[in-house]
């Protein structure tokens, strides 16, 4: 008997301890999972700010009931003027009934009463910090060094000249008329014809190669990363928070434009998320301004101000590009052309050349995924027939005419 009692007691005690400790840890988690989309601690959101909520409710039991099912509470307690007014004050928005145990509610309330101290904001690690990269000063150092050396050469040659003239004076010799630097150079060149030719060739070749790259880079804006009206970080959205590209750029799956999301798409999340760790709070405020969202009143004012983004990827008018062709039919990942966007902070940059050669290279190499798409059934059969001598069985975009002019130019 004793054993049974001890055993049961110990089990109960153990369970209690276990659950209690678990709940204490889970207060924050529970709050974030169940409450945070509508409540903040120190700020109104869809519902009221929750700090001091226990002080505002006289009857703690009523508070528990209210949290678990506010609509039920309102029905059962029509006399509770505080609760009734609260409901009206917040636009009669219904708080979802919460399937929480008393212990869990308690944990949440504990968390609200004693929020953990603000962790020191990680200064560099997480924020969108891609400021202008530290400039490479080695070139300047080299240049300075060259200048110093040149001065040394000049001084030394001056010293040498003085010494020579002193020596000549001492020996009563007549120095030959000093030659100008140009004449000297010509004389030197006349004496060293082969070397001169070699040097001229090397200089010409270097200039041509450099010139070629300069000319080739005209109109190529790889790495173009203009300042944007809002410091939007793909790293935070697509990286840290793993938001699908298509959530914002959904038209990439439908038509030719990937599209910059309209402000109402931003507001889907940012109605609730109004703060960031580094620049977030000020930048999110800009979204609110664009959308005409009054965060205080939690209402749209109707005064909208479209955001003027700076376009990064500018394809010329004479090139037709369709995103859905590549993303839906070609099953290409966004990253193929845009790079590891989820690693890019602010500002977003152009990852690829976007030149015709770059397009063509990819069309030459990329295999078309014909399987499972009935459009290609007949074409695949015909291609197998045509290339049976070459024994090609997987076909690239080139094989289906992807290098033809009128595929992109019309």
């Amino acid at each position: 008997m004793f054993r049974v009692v001890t055993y049961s007691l110990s089990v109960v005690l153990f369970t209690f301890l276990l659950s209690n400790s678990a709940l204490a840890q889970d207060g924050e988690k529970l709050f974030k999972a169940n409450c945070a989309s509508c409540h903040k601690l120190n700020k109104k959101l869809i519902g009221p700010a929750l700090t001091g909520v226990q002080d505002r409710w006289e009857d703690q039991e009523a508070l528990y009931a209210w949290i678990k099912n506010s609509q039920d509470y309102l029905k059962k307690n029509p006399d509770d003027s505080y609760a009734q007014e609260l409901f009206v004050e917040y636009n009669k928005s219904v708080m979802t009934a919460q399937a929480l145990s008393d212990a869990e509610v308690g944990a949440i309330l504990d968390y609200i009463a004693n929020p953990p101290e603000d962790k020191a904001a990680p200064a560099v690690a997480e924020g969108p910090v891609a400021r202008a990269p530290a400039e490479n000063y080695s070139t300047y150092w080299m240049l300075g060094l060259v200048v110093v050396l040149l001065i040394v050469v000049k001084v030394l040659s001056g010293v040498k000249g003085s010494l020579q003239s002193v020596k000549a004076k001492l020996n009563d010799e007549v120095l030959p008329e000093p030659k100008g630097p140009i004449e000297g150079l010509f004389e030197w060149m006349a004496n060293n014809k082969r070397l001169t030719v070699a040097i001229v060739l090397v200089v010409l070749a270097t200039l041509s190669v450099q010139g070629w790259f300069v000319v080739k880079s005209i109109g190529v804006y790889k790495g173009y990363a203009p300042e944007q009206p809002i410091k939007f970080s793909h790293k935070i959205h697509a990286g840290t928070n793993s938001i699908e590209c298509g959530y914002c750029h959904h038209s990439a799956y439908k038509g030719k434009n990937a599209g910059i999301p309209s402000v109402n798409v931003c507001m889907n999340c940012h109605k609730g998320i109004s703060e960031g760790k580094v620049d977030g709070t000020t930048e999110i405020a800009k979204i609110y301004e664009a959308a005409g969202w009054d965060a205080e009143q939690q209402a749209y004012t109707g005064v909208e101000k479209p955001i003027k983004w700076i376009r990064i990827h500018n394809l010329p008018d004479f090139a037709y590009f369709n995103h859905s062709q590549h993303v839906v039919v070609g099953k290409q990942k966004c990253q193929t052309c845009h790079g590891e966007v989820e690693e890019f902070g602010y500002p977003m940059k152009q990852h690829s050349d976007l030149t015709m050669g770059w397009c063509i290279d990819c069309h030459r190499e990329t295999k078309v995924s014909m399987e499972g798409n009935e459009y290609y059934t007949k074409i695949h059969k015909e291609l197998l027939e045509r290339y049976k001598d070459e024994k090609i069985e997987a076909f690239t975009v080139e094989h289906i005419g992807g290098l033809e002019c009128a595929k992109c130019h019309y």
Partner: protein
Amino acid sequence: MSDKKYWNSVDHLEEEPLFVEEAQKEFSEAVPVEDFLSKSNLSDTSASRRDFLKFMGFSIGAATLAACETPVVKSIPYVVKPEEVTPGVANWYASSFSKGGTFSSILVKTREGRPIFIKANDAYPEAMSGVTARVNASVIELYDDNRYQGPQKAGTTIGWSDVDTEISKKLAAIKEKGGTVKVVAESTSSPSTLATFAKFDEMFSTETEVEVYGEDALLKGTEMVKDSCVVTFDPINYNGVLSANKADFGKAVIPTYDFSKAKTIVSIDADFLGDWLDGVTYSKGYTQRRKPEGAWMSKHYQFETMMSMAGANADVRGAIKPSDVGNVAKMLHGAVAKLAGSAGASGSLSDDDNNIAAKVNDAAKDLWAAKGKCLVVCGSNDANIQQVVNGINNLLGNYNNTIRLERAYNVVQMNDSMVDLTKNMNSGIVDAVIFMDSNPVYSNAAFAAAVSKVGLKISLADRPDESSVLCDYVCPSHFFLEAWNDYQPYTGVFTMQQPAIRPLFKTRAAQESLLRWCGVNTSYYDFIKETWTSTAFAGADALTATNKWNSAVQSGVYMGAKMAPEADLAYSGDTGAAAGNIKSTTGEWEVKFYAKQSIGNGAQANNPHLQEMPDPISKVSWDNYVTMNPSDMEGKYEIRTAQATPANVVSVTVNGHTMELPVVALPGQKRGTIGIALGYGRTETGTAGKVGVNAYPALEMKDGVAVYSSSKVSIADAGKTYQIASVQTHHTMMDRKIVNETTLSTFKAVDKNDDVNGWNKDSKLADAFGKVRPIKELNLWADHAIEKGHRWGMSIDLNSCTGCGACVTACHIENNVPVVGKDEIRRTRSMFWLRIDRYFSSDMTKEKGKTDDVGVVSMYKQMENPSDYPQVVFQPVMCQHCNHAPCETVCPVAATTHSEEGLNQMTYNRCVGTRYCANNCPYKVRRFNWFNYNKDSKFTGINPAQNELQRMVLNPDVVVRSRGVIEKCSFCVQKIQSGKLTAKKAGRPVKDGDVVSACSEACPTNAIQFGDLNDSKSSVRANFDDDRSYFMAEEVGTQPNVAYMTKVRNTENLA
């Protein structure tokens, strides 16, 4: 093959030395360096070589610097994106077009909210759905910067509330004193507009005392009769038909004419394939029965003054004077009555040089043989003549068969007397006049003179016109693509006009303005909904009514109850009396006024695409002119009109009004007659519209409305010359198998490759060894792999092509083809990706030569002789996308290449403008950009893409070409690519109909078919394999991907 010899202009026929010389050169002029250098008289200053080098150095430097600069392009997304809009994906909205007597149920293509293209609505009954050039080109008028941008008072801007207050006050004052308010409006079939008029009448109509007589003709007293405020006025009215039906059937309606059931068709001066009433519907029905493969092919007789589209397509055509229209009707009535065994009217022609009497008898026989399945139509505006025509149709039993009165064409209504209105205005009875969709100051001379007598003039026009500029107030209406409206084009068939864009300017629906002024403050949208709820949806509960309304808006069409023939619409006409009333006076010259397929009554004059579209017959653009038979011009006026030999200008006086117009030779025009187009000479409109001479003041008024022919004509040489902008002289195909034609009996009885009479022989040529082989086997180049994948092709049925030109404007709007203007066309620099060549034929044939035994030399000589009354064929020509394209082999920079899908690709940004390709093209379809048409000040007001507003009509999927490159038909490659993409995304093969070119989409008669030739089930494949198909200039060995279907005329027998 037909043995007729075709020529495409009188110069070609006569082989003028200058013409022949020009014909040898594709580009008859050197590069117009001066034109683009002489902007500031640069050529007058003496620029030295040093200056030139400086300029060049500067430009190279500037270009390099410009190239280095990183462009900053803003990208501004929606704040709240509408759910239905996806950037880069087009939306289509159903709507309606109703203007100038033309009605179409349409689909409007919008991109990012901008309407950019119009095509026929497929939800509308197939037999009636189609668009004309005027309908599909109307989309650019939305972006006309000439439009009113808000209400105006005496030319200065004013707010809507102010204008409403002022006008309401003035109208109230008029009502107070019992004055008269008149609304001059175009005829409309819109139930809600008519309901608006009724509301307006309730408020402002006056009562007139009318004497009432009893049956004994004794005065019984007086009665007050309501006098409607609305004066229906169309520049081109059809009161003749309406009055005749009123007299014969008791109801003033335009019936439904069913050309698809008519085995014999006789048209007396009615261009039913062109501008006469519902031309699109008639063309559809007509061409359905013009297929020689069908169970039967209709036989078409046309008696007319000037060559019309209907005349060009006719099997038998007779040229008659306008004054003989009544006589032909009477003769036909007499002949048909004789066959029926009764006595009919009789008539004789004042002048018969075209064997009319015999043709009328043939027509009567064919009509009688197809009793109840034939049709006689007449274009006269004389009710008596129309009554005789009704009599013929009644004798033939056509009513309730091919003609149905219960399903009336409501787009055209009986016009009210302008003479009475003008009289009342002059005597000061009319206190206020409101212009709604009408411009009588331009199209009615007497009205224009009287309009200043009216105290209050209000215009509801959406853009300035001759009437609105004289108005005290302008309350601009929406453009139709911005507005709600409803129509009932045919009784029982309702359509919706749904806005495809929000109003661009501060405009308001005209009906809403009228409602506001008579105290109804609902929006016109709500008013339409109310009208529908109380009429079409009467009795339905709210939910059903809403559903019906939504589906009507979505599809654009609502079909009312099926109509049974009305018993009380029985014929009770008196042909004898009507025939007796027909008076015909002839003169030395007679004139016929007509409306061009492109310009119509002139309301759409400021539409550069329409101005540039050549007339189907004369092939002249940008002007009106006097058409005359070449034999009448012989020795007096210049018949060949080229750059060096401009047209003569004559001074034509009709009914006392004198106009100076150039003379254009037009075979087929009745000798002793001339034709003049209406709708030109606008003065108060944009740059593009101010061309030609206004011919409306020359119209004679009869029974209060205008008639469109006259014999009070005198012509004198004005001693001047004028260069017309004609497109066809410059497109010669010389003397090859271009249009193939045969007769129905030959087609039925003879094999196409028959040695003697073969009508579509395969082209064969002897090779180096003297062996005759098919052209296809004689190859210089390796073949493209055309049997694999897709191979896009087009077939054009010359039997179905009526020459209307809807494809031309549709092509231009889809592909951002620039309008180049009159001056450039004069210089042979037209920019048509798709043109319709028109060829006249000679009446001399090899068979005729043999039977008449005229001798070979004489026969060929006569073949070249112009027949004054020739037959006409049309041939749409665009890039033939040759599999062995001569252009591709001569391009030095590989800017034009061949795709594996059979396309002849043109890469503009690779083109350096050598124009070798154009010189080497046997079809002359490659056109050169001589200017930056979208920027050059020379084209301001002409090319519709010069400013921010006008540019909105451009198709964002097609690039705008720059100066110095060749461009041409691409087979709408952007539509091919998008059709393929749709199929790929859906994971299915491309179906026939997924990919349709703009011209094919626009063709109301389905003459142009487009599709994949490697798809065995496609309609193009079937057409390519048809016996009638042939390739143009096949002997050159180009192997085109465009096939033409031999034209078969029903000239021998009646199936």
